[in-house]
């Protein structure tokens, strides 16, 4: 199961994700958490992917869905520290060209 911890850094909501973002589990958690944030008017969202081990196509699809939903609300979803398989998957799908992605948290926070 994927875990999702929530922190607030000024205006930015940071979701620390851990585990795998996969069909029927992680993708659902991700969708629900981002929905909650957007419903609460928090539309600047940083997804910390450091501890995410892998995603499948359903998880990747949900990442894109979150990106679009935040943008519709005038906000943004950005990524922190994708690594290993997750980094490979973002490259492979060319989503690295869609998402603003950061290695350094303070830099990521400043970017919003």
């Amino acid at each position, binding site marked *: 199961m994927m875990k999702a911890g929530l922190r607030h850094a000024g205006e930015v909501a940071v979701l620390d994700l851990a585990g795998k973002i996969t069909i029927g589990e992680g993708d659902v958690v991700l969708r629900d958490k981002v929905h909650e944030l957007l419903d609460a008017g928090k539309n600047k969202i940083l997804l910390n992917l450091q501890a995410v081990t892998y995603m499948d196509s359903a998880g990747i*699809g949900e990442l894109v869905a979150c990106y679009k939903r935040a943008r519709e609300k005038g906000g943004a979803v950005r990524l922190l520290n994708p690594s290993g398989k997750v980094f490979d998957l973002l490259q492979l799908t060319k989503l690295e060209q869609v998402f603003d992605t950061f290695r350094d948290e303070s830099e990521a926070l400043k970017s919003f």
Partner: protein
Amino acid sequence: MAAETSVQIAIASDVRLVDVVHGAAERVAEIAGFAEEDALSAALAVREAVINAVKHGNGCDPALSVDVVLEAGREGFRATVRDRGRGFDPGAAPDPTAEGNRLRTHGRGLLLIRAFVDEVRFRYAEGQGMEVELIKKRRAESAA
């Protein structure tokens, strides 16, 4: 490919069971001699083929099974994933990496399958369903 050891799995068309096949594929790939990262690649390819079989092939009908064979051999890892559906044309799917498609929330499964194994074959047997065959070869040194 001569199988050194093999596993057959039949799951009900239930996405919660995809993890079962993923885990089995990872283990069989390890037995075939792949290190952790490559075994995960093989398992992810199998995972996507199983998701497609459950969703598109069998329409998530729990009465229809997805049949998987996993083999570890001296040359590498081989998997077949068979559904009970009407088949499809794998060449017809749009390229999810094309600029206009990158924000689509679906359509990346075949891309992942092709990226994570060395050979992919699609076969349709009339009245039986679609079968996807995946092969990942062991290399003497390099990691894929």
